[in-house]
């Protein structure tokens, strides 16, 4: 978890990221090179192009024409965009805390030194590997379908959960919560870093389990919580596959699963509206950057960096 260490150091500002001396950097650059080459040759070009296309009317077939800020003005009155923003926000606000809660709860359980820990850790991590895949989204369709597993277990007939606009988004939220493995593994690593002597000292002073959790675990784990929170919020904003597969690409029923990225995709590739789609991509970047900035600012009040 060197990323966390890095994050902690950056926050403290005592040692800069280059503080380790020049010799270490050479190796770092070598390891970074493949990724950097990919960024430069595969990602950077399209990123720059999409920025320019955001100010054009571009239908994928004819050359783009500049239309100034028209795309951005259009966002103000685009009802489906507002709907997509609402759906995405609910998804982020509900599913991220639930997911992190589940991850932390299981990490605490596993940290107790269970027998067969490696097995449980892998078992709980598995959904994270599968979660954003097409296969699991297809499986979800089956589970929550009208003739699906849930209805068979509950003995319900004549309603589908994914095809009902009141429940469709919740099935996706459950799917996201289920993929708590990645933050869980990070939590586990964080819990291992907390020195045992703190708990021993607290126990000697007569602190109960709850007090220990509240006064030792939570503060010392807070940088990890913060790290997971930032990552999972960004991740949730960018969710696409689940909604695409579960709704058959429509974001339906009646736009109840219209994730932001799904709407962007529809405009770009379904409506040949690539200029507007590019502008939407940049708006998403601004939104995510803004929320992340707020997150970092708020961290001052609750994240504890211990030396």
């Amino acid at each position, binding site marked *: 978890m060197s990323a966390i260490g890095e994050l902690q150091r950056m926050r403290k500002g005592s040692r800069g990221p280059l503080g380790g001396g020049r010799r270490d950097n050479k190796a770092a650059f070598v390891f970074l090179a493949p990724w950097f080459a990919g960024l430069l040759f595969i990602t*950077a*070009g399209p990123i*720059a*192009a999409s*920025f*320019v*296309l955001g100010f054009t009317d*571009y*239908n*994928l*077939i*004819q*050359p*783009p024409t500049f239309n100034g800020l028209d795309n951005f003005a259009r966002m103000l009155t685009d009802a489906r965009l507002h709907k997509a923003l609402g759906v995405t926000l609910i998804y982020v606000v509900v599913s991220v805390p639930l997911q992190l809660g589940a991850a932390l709860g299981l990490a605490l359980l596993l940290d107790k030194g269970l027998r067969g820990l490696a097995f449980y850790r892998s078992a709980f991590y598995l959904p994270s590997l599968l979660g954003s895949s097409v296969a699991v989204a297809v499986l979800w369709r089956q589970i929550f*379908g*009208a003739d699906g597993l849930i209805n068979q277990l509950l003995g319900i*007939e*004549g*309603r*589908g*959960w*994914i*095809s*009902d*606009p*009141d429940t469709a988004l919740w099935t996706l939220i459950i799917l996201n919560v289920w993929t708590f493995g990645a933050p869980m593994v990070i939590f586990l690593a964080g819990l291992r870093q907390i020195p045992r002597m703190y708990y021993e000292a607290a126990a000697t002073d007569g602190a109960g389990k709850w007090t220990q959790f509240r006064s030792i675990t939570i503060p010392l784990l807070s940088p990890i919580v913060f790290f997971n929170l930032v990552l999972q919020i960004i991740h949730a904003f960018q969710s696409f596959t689940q909604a695409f597969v579960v*709704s*058959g*690409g*429509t974001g*339906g*029923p*009646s*736009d109840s699963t219209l994730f932001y990225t799904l709407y962007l995709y*529809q405009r770009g*590739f*379904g*409506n*040949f*509206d*690539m200029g507007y789609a590019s502008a939407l991509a940049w708006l998403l970047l601004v939104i995510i950057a803004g929320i992340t900035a707020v997150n970092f600012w708020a961290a001052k009040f609750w994240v504890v960096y211990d030396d």
Partner: protein
Amino acid sequence: MRRTALAMAAVFALSACGSGGSASQELSKDPVTLRFTWWGADERHKRTQQVIDLFEKKYPNVTVKGEFKDWNGYWESLATTVAANDAPDIIQMDELYLSSYAERGALLDLGTASKYLKTADFDKSALDTGVVKGKQYALPVGLATYAIVANTDLFDKFKIKLPDDSAWSWEDLKKVGDEVSKAGGGKVTGFQSLGFDAGGMNIWIRQAGASLFDESGKVAVPPEVLTSYWTYVRDLAKQGVTPPPSVTIERASASLDQSGTATNTSALATWWNTQLSSLATASGSKLKLLRIPGEAQATSPGAYFKPSMYWSVSSRTQHPAEAALFVDFLANSEEAANIMLTDRGVPANKKIRTAITPKLTETDKAAAEYLDTTKVGPAPRVTPNGASNLEAIIKRHTEEVLFDRQTPEQAATSFIAELQAEIDGA
């Protein structure tokens, strides 16, 4: 800044280049590779590959590479390849997207390839369905017409008389559907659904003497016609003639094999007549094509011939002559037709239609006969540029109505506004 400018230049260069004008209009002696893309199910892929093999045997220097997909991913993938200047040479096209591609210059005017592509055996009215702004951008492959598919086994089972379709109304359909639903006790409903495709909506609008689009490509349907349409759709669901909304929605997005007709859970359903054979195979029941309701009461005939699909050629093809030759083979060769039969609709080519008739199966014959005996009005205008998402917009508004999130009136107004905005934005 320099990088931005560079990227910009790249983008513009990419999209501006190549109109295919310089490509040779003569057949080449050298090896030529054509790419051919279509959507469809397994059966179509098998048959199409056989046709390709036949063509390659006849023209050994031409290789045809098939790229086939499911309908759902087809259009995204086509849009991406066209944008990347990597469009397949021969494209299976649909009425919904024809204008969008033709008006943006992505398709070859087939009139320029008439040396190798003959259209003499097509009716002018059929050919006209492939004309956009005066040019033949696409050649219709097959024709289809909207129909009601009735599961006669289910009617027999519940001892309900099959409705007389010679003069029945939408009210009659609702009544008999209600009877079946009551007899079916929740397992079987009388009618599958309405409000999830452009065909059904077009029929409703045309029967009211209106049309969805006017000649100039503007949305022309009066809101009250759509209000009556969605009121009817809602009543069907409320009375239990169609399944509960969430079940209907789930089925509407599933494949043909999971439909109410295929699973023997809907006694009546709307389909294109050419789907009869697939449905009969999937359901294992006896199915019969009925006339669409409301025709006797209608101001003007609702029924029309819809081109099931078209052949079109990319405007950027390097081999327009060979591409035309291949389309000619698909459209005019009896050998090819004997393999394809009615998989892509009842052939629009009249000579071919006669030639393959003796080889058809029982249900294929029934479908062809239904088409020949349907009284139709002039076909609706080709879906205008920008409106290719028509079906998605219809579906979404039906969902809003079924779940009482919008009244039929609200849906009608909102539908017209959104569709017109899409057309204006294109």
